C-alpha cells in the first residue's frame, strides 16, 4: 500500500472516485435541502425564475430547461420535468450499488470456482473450465442484454430465491454472472501453479484436508490477484450496467441510472444536450477514476507487470 501512496496520479483518481461516491451517498440530502424535489417528481407544467424571468420547466413543444446553475434544476430538467442533478446523484447511487453487488457476486463465484478447479484438477477442473468457457464464449454485453431482457419483465423466481423485475439486484445478478469467468480463469491458473509449490506439499504431508489447504494455503496467496481484479470489475460493472440500462435491460424505470438517463435524453439531442452530456461525463469520470486507481494498485502489488506508461 505504501507503493500506492507514492503513485500520486492513482491517488488523485482514487480521491475523485471517493468524492463521487460520497456525493451520490448524499443524494437524499441534496434532493431535500437544495433541490427540494425527489428523483421521480415531475414538474412539467411548472415554471422557474431564471435571470429574473419566468421560464417553463418544459416548453409547450416538450423541450426541457437547461442548467440554471442554481439550487433548483442546477443541471436542468428532463422531458418529464424532473431535476437532472437529483436524478444524477440517485442514478449514481444505483449504478454504484449495482456495481458493488455485481463485483461481490463475481468475486465470490470466481474465487470459489477458480480455486476449486485449480486445486482439484481432473474431472472437476474439466467441468468447471468448460463452464467458464461457456459463459466466456458469449460477448459480455450480448449475454447481459439477453439475460437482462429475459428477466426484466417477469423477474427471477428460483423457488426460495425471488427477485421482482424492478429490483436493482436483478441487473447486479446478471452482471455478476457475466463477469465471473473473466476472474475465475486467471485465479484457476494461479491456483494450479500454487498447488505444486512446496508449502502446499508440506501441508498435504502434514495431513491437512483439501478444504483446509485451499482456505489456509492457496487463498491467502491469491489475495493480491483478487485485490487487483476488484477495481477492474467495479469499473466494468459500472459500464455494463450503464449499457444494459441504456438498452432497457438493466435498471427499470422510474428508477434512475446513468444509462437510462442517457437513453431518455437521446431523442432531445441537440436541443437539450445536457440530458446526455451530464450523465455521460459522470460515467466517464467514474470509470476513469476506478481504472486509473486500479492500475496503480496493480503496479504496486506487482511492480514487474507495469504495462501502463506513467503520466
Amino acid at each position: 500500500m505504501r507503493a500506492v501512496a507514492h503513485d500520486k496520479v492513482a491517488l488523485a483518481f482514487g480521491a475523485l472516485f471517493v468524492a463521487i461516491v460520497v456525493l451520490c451517498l448524499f443524494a437524499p440530502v441534496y434532493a431535500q435541502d437544495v433541490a427540494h424535489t425527489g428523483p421521480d417528481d415531475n414538474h412539467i407544467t411548472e415554471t422557474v425564475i431564471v435571470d429574473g424571468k419566468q421560464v417553463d420547466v418544459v416548453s409547450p413543444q416538450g423541450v426541457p430547461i437547461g442548467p440554471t446553475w442554481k439550487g433548483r434544476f442546477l443541471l436542468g430538467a428532463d422531458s418529464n420535468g424532473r431535476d437532472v442533478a437529483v436524478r444524477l446523484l440517485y442514478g449514481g447511487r444505483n449504478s454504484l450499488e449495482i456495481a458493488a453487488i455485481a463485483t461481490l457476486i463475481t468475486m465470490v463465484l470466481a474465487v470459489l470456482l477458480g480455486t476449486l478447479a485449480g486445486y482439484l484438477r481432473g474431472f472437476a477442473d474439466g467441468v468447471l473450465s468448460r463452464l467458464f468457457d461457456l459463459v466466456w464464449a458469449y460477448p459480455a454485453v450480448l449475454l447481459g442484454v439477453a439475460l437482462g431482457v429475459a428477466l426484466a419483465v417477469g423477474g427471477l423466481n428460483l423457488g426460495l430465491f425471488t427477485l421482482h423485475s424492478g429490483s436493482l439486484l436483478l441487473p447486479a445478478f446478471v452482471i455478476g454472472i457475466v463477469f465471473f469467468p473473466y476472474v475465475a480463469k486467471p485465479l484457476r491458473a494461479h491456483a494450479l501453479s500454487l498447488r505444486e509449490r512446496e508449502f502446499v506439499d508440506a501441508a498435504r504431508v502434514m495431513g491437512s484436508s483439501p478444504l483446509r489447504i485451499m482456505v489456509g494455503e492457496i487463498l491467502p496467496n491469491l489475495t493480491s490477484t483478487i485485490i487487483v481484479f476488484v477495481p477492474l470489475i467495479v469499473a466494468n460493472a459500472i459500464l455494463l450496467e450503464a449499457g444494459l440500462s441504456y438498452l432497457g435491460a438493466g435498471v427499470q424505470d422510474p428508477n434512475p441510472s446513468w444509462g437510462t438517463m442517457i437513453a431518455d435524453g437521446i431523442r432531445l439531442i441537440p436541443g437539450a444536450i445536457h440530458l446526455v452530456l451530464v450523465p455521460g461525463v459522470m460515467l466517464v469520470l467514474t470509470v476513469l477514476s476506478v481504472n486509473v486507481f486500479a492500475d496503480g494498485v496493480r503496479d504496486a502489488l506487482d511492480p514487474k507487470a507495469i504495462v501502463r506508461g506513467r503520466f
Partner: protein
Amino acid sequence: MHRTLRSLLGLSLALALFAGLSACGSSSTGSTTGGTTGGTATVLMGTPPDSLDPGLGATTQSYEATWITYTGLVTYAHASGEAGTKLIPGLAESLPSVSSDGKTYTFTLRKGLVYSNGAPVKASDFAYTIQRAIKLGWGDKELLTENIAGGEAFDKGKSSSISGIQTDDATGRITVKLVAPYGPFLNVLAFPAAGLVPSGTAMKSLTNSPPPGVGPYEIASVVPNKSFALTRNPHFSSSTIPGVPAGHVDLNVKIVSNNQSEAEQVLDNTADVFDYNDSIPPTLISQVESQASGRYAKEPTVSGEYFFLNTKAKPFDNPLARQAVNYAIDKRALQRLDSGMLDPGCFFLPVGMPGHPTSPCPYGDPNAAPNLAKAKELVRQSGLAGTPVTVWGGSRAPHKEFVDYYASVLNAIGFKASEKIVADAQYYQTVGNLSTNPQTGWLSFSQDFPNPIDFYQLLDAKSILPTENHNLSQVDDPHIQSEIAALGPVPSSQLSSVVGRWQALDQYNAQKAYLAPFGYDEVPKFFSDRIDFGAAVFHPVYGNDWSTLQLK
C-alpha cells in the same frame, strides 16, 4: 360573322376533343384538379410497411400505399376532414342495395375495368380476393370471417369457398351474405385488403412483388425495409372511378428510421414528404414552425390516448380508485410530453368520431390543472392507499414518458407505483395476454373506420380473450353490452340517426371511469417547398393522400 362563328365552332370542337382525350387518361394529363402533373416526389417513412401485399398489410404505413393501389367495391372519398369519411362506389357501379334484414349486400361491377397489368377485372376476383386475405392471415381478417356467412368455415378449412359470396362474371353481379347485420360492413370492404386482385394470384405473401390492382398507382421496385416506388398506373384515369383521382407524380418511398434526419431532409427540401406517423423531434419543432410555416400544419386524427384501468384487479376494481386517477392526471403535462401534438380530452370517443360527447368532462377541465387534493381524498376513502400498482408501457417516445409521468402521479396520490416497459412491437401482445393481468398501463387506439363501434370493441366484454385481449380494462358492463348490441348493426351511412345514443353511452363510460383518457393525437402534415401544400389532401382514415400530391 359567319367566319367568326365557324372559328368559334372549330375552337369548341378542339376544346371538346382535348377534354375528351384528357378524360381518357393519358398519364401526363390525368389531373382532376387541374394542378401540375408529372415528376417524382420523395416520400419518407419512419417505419417500413408490415407488407405491401394487400392481403397481408395491416399497418397505417401499408395502407398509405395500398389504398391508392388496390381499390375495393367501395372506397373513401379523397377529401380531408369529415368529407373523407364518406364511402363512395369504387369498383362497384354504385353503393350496394341492402336487403331489409341488413344481411345481404348486392353490388354490380363497373364495366371495362382492367388491372394495372391490363387484364380485365371479373366479379369472381372479389371472392378470390377475400379468400386470399383470409388464407394469408390479414391482420383484421376477423372482420371478414366473423361477418361473412361461411367465412369461418373457409378459414378453418371446412370448405373450399366462402358460401356467403356469390358472383356472376357475365353480369358483374356480386352478392355478399352476412351472418348478422353489421353496421360498418361497407367500411370493411373499403379496406385495401378487399381491393381486388386477379383470380389465381399466388396464395402467398407477394410483399416484394405486389400483385396488380385497380387504382391510380402500382407498386414497383420493392427493396425490403429500404425503399419502394409507386408509379402511375397507365390503365387508370380520373374517369375510371369518379371521385378517385389519377396520381399526379411518381413516388419514391424511402425508409428513414431516424426522425431527426427525416425532419431535416424535408426541412432542407432534399425529400418531399415527412411521415405523419412519426413525430418531429421537439427540438426541431420551433425551427420547422418558423422556417416552414407555409408547408407545415398540425392535423387532427381520430385517435385517442388512454390509460387502461383493470376493473378486475386491485386497486382499480374500486370505482373510487379509477375516479382518483381521472381527477389526478394533468392532460396539459401529457400534451407537452407529446411535443404539443395532443389535444387534451377526457372522453373515449375522440373528436371527429360521430358520438364524441360535447358535454363537460366529469372529472375536470382537461385544459386546466388537475384536482390532486380530490384524487388523494378518493384514494384515502377507498382504503387502497399504499397498494402496489404496476404501470405498463411501450418503450418508444413518448409512450415511455407518458408512463413515467403516470407512475409519478400514482405515487403522488397514494399508490405505490412501479413500471414495466416493453418494446412497442411486443407491447400489446404482452398486456393483451390475460395471464399477465396488467393492472394499468398506456393504451392508444386509432380508428380503423369512421364508426364508433370500432372504438367500442375495446370495451366490449366479448373482446376479453385469453390472448390478444382488446378489452384491457376488462369491462363487462350490461349497459354497454346492450347499447353495443343495439347500435352495432346501424349502417355507417345512418350514424347521424344514433349519434345522440353514442354520445350518451360515451358520457356514461366517462362517468364510470373505465379508462383514463387524456387526449387525441395530432400529427404533422409536413412537405418540402416543391409540393403544392394546399392541394394535398390529409385523409381522415389513411393520412397523407399521396394521389393528391403534385409539384408546384
